[in-house]
């Protein structure tokens, strides 16, 4: 009797949950599409009037429109659940983007990325801990900032927080600092890449290795060029795949000091922390390599991934509340900013080295 009383409620809950997402989803689509229309309108106008003007990708317009809305009118409660789905669209887009990679390319570029990621993570974790001491940050806040800036931003902080028993406050500080620094990277990386005349592959690899959050790394790549965006996603996905190992390392360190719970089964821990969308990306890439899709079908899958990213980029702007970031205090931000500059320079050097010795 109890079961029959509960069961009918489930579909209603699911339906009401989905309905609650609709306003925010429409806002994401409207902001993203407005960015696309602005890009097309400027391109059409400059072409018609024979004006030479650099093409500004819709990505930038979508982010700027989102930032303006979030920091002026704010996001009313009714839109918030739908706007929060931007990360879901990011992951769906990345899995679909797997169709644009032959598995051989994934192994070649992914292998180079893995080598560079291993070097960059080791050096940047060490540097972030030196900075944490210099700024007298709490040790666990330093650990979270180090994980966030060297692996994959907010997701890494969220994965590490329960594993090292960090405070909510420390996690919020670290997340705010990483989000602010991610927003700055979006505008600085393409400018630096163009001024250094980096190739699409070299720039994409750099953005994927240095920009923290997956959404921002994807956007920073797409802002440079379509090809750079593709490489940035692959490099960032490789970095994401290592999240479990680093979080496990921190969990073991803090539990050995008696300040976090003991880790039981290490393999199960790694699997829990492993970003499963990486497997989806590899599966679609394998299917594309085996000729499962025709050429027009591959074009459709690429375009589907572009539409998913359009929703993501709108969400990047809409969820960045600059007022909230200002409230968090300057120390974590300053330590994070110095760390980011170090990581950006380090990874740029690694990319130059890889370009010369490993042929990207």
């Amino acid at each position: 009797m109890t079961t029959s009383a509960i069961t009918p409620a489930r579909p209603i809950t699911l339906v009401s949950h989905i309905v609650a997402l609709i306003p925010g989803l429409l806002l994401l689509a409207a902001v993203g599409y407005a960015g696309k229309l602005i890009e097309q309108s400027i391109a059409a106008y400059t072409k018609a009037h024979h004006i030479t003007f650099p093409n500004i990708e819709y990505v930038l317009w979508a982010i700027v429109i989102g930032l303006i809305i979030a920091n002026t009118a704010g996001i009313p409660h009714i839109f918030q659940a739908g706007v929060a789905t931007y990360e879901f669209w990011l992951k769906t887009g990345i899995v679909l983007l797997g169709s644009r990679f032959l598995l051989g390319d994934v192994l070649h570029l992914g292998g180079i990325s893995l080598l560079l990621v291993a070097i960059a993570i080791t050096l940047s974790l060490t540097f972030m801990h030196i900075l944490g001491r210099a700024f007298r940050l709490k040790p666990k806040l330093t650990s979270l900032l180090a994980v966030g800036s060297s692996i994959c931003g907010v997701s890494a902080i969220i994965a590490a927080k329960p594993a090292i028993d960090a405070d909510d406050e420390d996690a919020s500080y670290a997340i705010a600092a990483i989000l602010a620094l991610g927003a700055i990277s979006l505008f600085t990386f393409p400018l630096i890449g163009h001024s250094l005349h980096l190739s699409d592959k070299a720039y994409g690899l750099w953005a994927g290795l240095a920009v923290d959050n997956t959404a921002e790394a994807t956007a920073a790549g797409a802002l440079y060029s379509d090809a750079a965006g593709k490489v940035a996603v692959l490099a960032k996905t490789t970095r994401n795949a290592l999240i479990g190992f680093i979080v496990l390392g921190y969990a073991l360190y803090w539990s050995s000091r008696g300040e976090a719970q003991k880790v039981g089964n290490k393999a199960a821990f790694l699997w829990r922390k492993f970003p499963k969308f990486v497997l989806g990306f590899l599966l679609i890439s394998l299917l594309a390599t085996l000729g499962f899709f025709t050429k027009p079908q591959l074009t459709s899958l690429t375009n589907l991934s572009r539409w998913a990213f359009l929703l993501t980029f709108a969400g990047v702007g809409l969820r960045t509340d600059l007022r909230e970031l200002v409230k968090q205090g300057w120390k974590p931000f300053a330590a994070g900013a110095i760390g980011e500059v170090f990581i950006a320079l380090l990874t740029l050097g690694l990319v130059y080295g890889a370009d010369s010795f490993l042929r990207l």
Partner: protein
Amino acid sequence: MSNPANSSQHTISLDAYAVLLALILALLVRLNLVPPIKW
């Protein structure tokens, strides 16, 4: 900003749903059940 304490579990299911949606879309495209997607 999401509550980090709740987001760990959320992330796992989010990944699974994203992979599921992408695979369903890929299958629909493969079986020509959706018209060509334009950009």
